[in-house]
């Protein structure tokens, strides 16, 4: 159910829109109420907290070719004059340039997607504790095991002259971290499940726990990679990392407006092997960034970015779309109500191919299966890659040798990497547990994934 407080402020938002329209050509009010419950069970620390919860409003206005915004906690007693006074600039440096005004179509709708499992804190804590105890029992080299359940309940309202929208949706993440120690060598491994259903997320967490610990223990013997060019197979997590960091940031169309993206010159041209298809969208699959409308009040989309290796289009927030004369794709997102909207990715993934994973492994003469996202950084202007996998498993003559390398940095030029993709597996997995920044700030929840991909890459 939509947060009752937000519901109680819809008439206030309508009043503000009406009053501010006397001063401005466009007015909208976005209200957000996000409640985050976190249950942490670990070897040394336990807690049940409400973390990073937020509740507030942002009023957006437009006049004379410029947008202004005002963020505040409440709008009940907010006078329109206070908004006008706060956002009015007397003298400010700017060239004479007019941004276009947002155009909206009438739309009224209420959306709802709630966690079907009604689990108590006790039930969740018990599930996490059982796994923690089991992992300690399994191997005495475990020095810390942390399990974290997080349920994010998001309510939003969007009110403008033509729109009155509301949405409530839940997302659940269950994360585990195993820290193991042998002498002076310390290693860790993690896994995060993301689901719209608490019961399903906890079930997957329990199922994967032994594998996560097994990898942590194997990492104790892992060796650094000998820098060089290799045949690689990326697991769905690394495929997603490449989709997101290496390519996705470069098709965020606010970067097109700023002429900061090389991709703008490649629309309609090949950017990857013909086997590659890539998608993004809050409605492209059910995952961490699946909402019904974005922070501009635009309905969720499923955008095909790459089709058979050809770049089709980018993704955009409303303002960027206006500037570029294209349709917004429902990708306007804020970190929270006190921050600006940017074009942001949502659920970003490579589409499936026709190959079987087993055949892909068999086809590798010498290379690595790269697994588990560690981190990555974008370079949309120059398309340099920095993606780090937590570990790689050596393959020789089509078979795993048992050797592990860690960590593994993939570098090079994005188009070279995507063009080298020679096999694509037939099953897609999207991991709904990530967060993404724009530059070095503006964090939002995202997901990414894809099939297994076989390619050639520089590892270091």
């Amino acid at each position, binding site marked *: 159910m939509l947060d009752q407080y937000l519901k109680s402020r819809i008439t206030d938002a309508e009043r503000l829109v009406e009053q501010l329209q006397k001063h401005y050509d466009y007015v909208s009010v976005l209200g957000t109420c996000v409640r985050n419950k976190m249950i942490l069970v670990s070897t040394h620390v336990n807690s049940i907290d409400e973390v990073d919860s937020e509740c507030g409003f942002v009023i957006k206005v437009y006049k004379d070719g*410029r947008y202004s915004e005002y963020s505040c906690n409440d709008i009940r007693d907010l006078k329109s004059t206070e908004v006008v006074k706060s956002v009015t600039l007397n003298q400010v440096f700017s060239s004479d340039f007019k941004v276009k005004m947002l155009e909206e179509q009438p739309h009224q709708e209420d959306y709802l997607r709630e966690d079907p499992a009604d689990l108590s804190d006790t039930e969740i804590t018990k599930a996490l504790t059982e796994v923690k105890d089991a992992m300690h029992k399994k191997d005495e080299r475990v020095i810390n095991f942390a399990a974290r359940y997080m349920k994010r309940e998001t309510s939003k309202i969007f009110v403008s002259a033509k729109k009155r929208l509301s949405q409530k949706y839940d997302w659940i993440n269950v994360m585990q971290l195993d820290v193991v120690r042998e002498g002076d060598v310390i290693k860790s491994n993690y896994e995060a499940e993301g689901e719209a259903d608490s019961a399903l997320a906890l079930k997957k967490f329990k199922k994967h726990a032994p594998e996560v610990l097994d990898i942590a223990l194997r990492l104790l013997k892992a060796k650094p990679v000998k820098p060089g060019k290799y045949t690689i197979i990326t697991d769905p997590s690394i495929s997603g990392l490449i989709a997101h960091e290496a390519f996705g940031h470069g098709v965020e169309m606010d970067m097109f407006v700023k002429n900061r993206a090389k991709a703008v010159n490649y629309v309609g041209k090949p950017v990857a092997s013909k086997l590659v298809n890539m998608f993004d969208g809050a409605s492209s699959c059910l995952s961490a960034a699946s909402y019904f409308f974005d922070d501009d009040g635009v309905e969720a989309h499923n955008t095909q970015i790459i089709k058979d290796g050809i770049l089709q289009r980018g993704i955009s927030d409303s303002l960027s779309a206006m500037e570029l004369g294209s349709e917004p794709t429902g990708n306007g997102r804020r970190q929270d109500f006190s921050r*600006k909207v940017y074009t942001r990715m949502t659920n970003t993934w490579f589409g499936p191919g026709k190959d079987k994973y087993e055949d892909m492994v068999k086809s590798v003469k010498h290379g690595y299966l790269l697994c588990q996202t560690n981190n990555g950084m974008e370079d949309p202007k120059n398309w340099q890659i920095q993606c780090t996998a937590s570990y790689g498993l050596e393959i020789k003559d089509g078979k795993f040798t048992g050797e592990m390398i860690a960590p593994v940095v993939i570098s090079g030029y994005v188009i070279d990497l995507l063009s080298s993709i020679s096999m694509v597996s037939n099953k897609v997995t999207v991991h709904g547990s990530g967060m993404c920044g724009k530059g070095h700030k503006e964090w939002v929840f995202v997901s990414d994934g894809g099939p297994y991909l076989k390619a050639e890459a520089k590892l*270091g």
Partner: protein
Amino acid sequence: MMKKNEIISCIKANKKITDYELTIQDKNSRELFYVLDHLEINRAVKTKTVKIEVYVADKKTVGSSTVTVTAADDGKSLASKLNKAVTKAKQARNAYYPLPEKTENIKDKKNVKRDLNDIAGKVAKAVFKADVYKNGWINSTEIFVSEFTDEFISSKGISHTAQSFKIEVECIPTWSNKKEEFELYKFYESNKPDYRQITAEIDDILKLAKDRSNAKTLKEVDLPKDLIVLVKNDMLEVITDSISSQLSYASVFMHENHYSKNDTISDTAFDLTMKPVVPGCTGSKKYDRNGIVLKPKKIVSKGKAIAYFGDQRFGSYLKEEKISGSLPVCEVKADGVSYKKEKHLIIETFSSPQMEEDSGYWGGEVRLARYYDGKKYIPLTGFSIAGNIYENMKDVQFSEETSVLKNYKGPKYFIFRNIKIS
């Protein structure tokens, strides 16, 4: 939003709460967002963030739970939230630790009246004063001018108030070599309006963008095998944060520490002191999240680990006599060496500095470096460096020049040998 006294009354009315910590932050900011030199959007932010940490303790255990107070709350809803928090705190039990007692109360309230719109406008002018080049330009700029009032009140009688002011500028400089455009990233942060400094910093990053546009690849230069590598800026914060975290009470208690007291970190004599406030460091804080009034603590002396530091919980668990609190700034002092005549590689910017504390792996993809071949600097791009920080620190050296960053003060460059360049 509920008033402070109403919130405290609500907390005190719940007799099951053993202790509490209340934090309130008022934020007032003005923000300007430019595409090239035209203002696309301006923003005003006026918010209050209120959090309560509720503790429920007995003789052997303690549990805590965080409550966020929002504009949606009134006395009735907050009482209900606090009741729920008590239940959660009773459920999430930990070994007992006492909360810090009052020592002194900080009242850092200056009542400075600032016109934030005016300051933001002046910052914008200072940024674009550097935008004077034919082949280089500022692609986009974000300016944040913010003032904060923070209050901390605990059931142990601690009551702190601190005010702070911050200017942040995110800037993307671009340079064209006529075939292709190249960009870099600049984040500037300061707690005083120094408009000349802003212009100088933007000018510097524009010149570095020019260097990137002329940069060569590794294949085009012949790097010697024993080349020394100099790292700076955010990588120094990543390295010192990683070293100091090995000496934190939490790492030691959880046996996740690579260093212990008396371990030699480096054969090079250097001191590392954790400090609360260092002029110019915008990460400075006078008290930590439990209200401990912070004092400097030296944790590395002459290259050897001599002490641990950290928060109340893990300090108590380790039975530390005087718990330091979570100190935010690392200050490094060391004799500097001259590197200028020797062939060397200065890493100007990484795409994102990498550090894996478990293994000590550090490095990353280099957006721009400058190689000194004995005669001149050659800009380089498109390669990576990698090392093991625990190994590399053993023979680290430091520059004579110094720098002040958000959470770091010390030598401008850490100088490393045996770094993989590929």
